[in-house]
């Protein structure tokens, strides 16, 4: 009798542990949906088209979007690139690519030495929780990039606003 009780207690414990693990896994994947998303091939293709055979360095670029977005139809996006912006050393172009949008390109801004700073703010559409890339091309031809992850609760593009 005693051993049977002990046994069922052990089983209960095991079951409890398993259920807790399930629950934690659920919460974890809910908090980190971005881990579940693979890199979209279209976005990678779009980036490859921009940079060609050149290597892309991390740094210099700063992309700012809110980490949690209620409505993907209007998302404030800001890109700033560190650069002296002189006639010989300036940011030539800024590309913004979204991995989860049906069309990954969002915009391409072409700057000149007369821009003074390389800061662009605008409002974009995001179709899904995803990673957004900003790639800057300097006047010497080098590429720099930054990315930002975000969660979108109401998606844009395919749904009615």
């Amino acid at each position, binding site marked *: 009798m005693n051993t049977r009780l002990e046994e069922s207690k052990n089983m209960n414990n095991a079951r409890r542990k398993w259920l807790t693990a399930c629950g934690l896994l659920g919460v974890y994947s809910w908090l980190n949906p971005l881990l579940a998303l693979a890199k979209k091939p279209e976005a990678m293709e779009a980036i490859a088209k921009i940079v060609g055979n050149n290597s892309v360095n991390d740094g210099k670029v700063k992309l700012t979007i809110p980490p949690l977005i209620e409505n993907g139809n209007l998302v404030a996006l800001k890109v700033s690139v560190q650069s002296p912006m002189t006639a010989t050393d300036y940011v030539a172009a800024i590309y913004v690519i979204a991995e989860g949008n049906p*069309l990954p390109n969002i915009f391409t801004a072409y700057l000149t030495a007369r821009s003074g700073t390389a800061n662009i703010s605008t409002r974009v559409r995001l179709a899904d929780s995803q990673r957004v890339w900003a790639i800057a091309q300097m006047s010497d031809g080098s590429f720099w990039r930054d990315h930002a992850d975000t969660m979108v609760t109401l998606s844009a593009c395919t749904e009615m606003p």
Partner: protein
Amino acid sequence: MSKTSHTKITMPNMAKKGEILEIRAIAQHDMETGFRYGDDGKMIPRDIIRFFSCSYNGVEVFKMDLYPGMGANPLIVFTTVATETGTLEFKWSGDNGYEAIDQSSITVS
């Protein structure tokens, strides 16, 4: 109207030489993505602004390509250096012959 040539430019009208000006340009436009379906189940054709440019006394200082990923009534905030007194001309163009032009003058001391 969802699509008009109504535009608005916000920028200072006076500046010192060499000062960095922040320019906010907005155009009234639906930016229909071409990915949505209407009530009849048919896809609504794409109708967006494709191109924006800014020239300072005839010299182009900024331009931008726009894609369906841009929000409706696209707002573009960018900067330029105040070099001389004159006018800045802003141009938008897009699908179905959409075109809009706006101007703003600046006095540089």
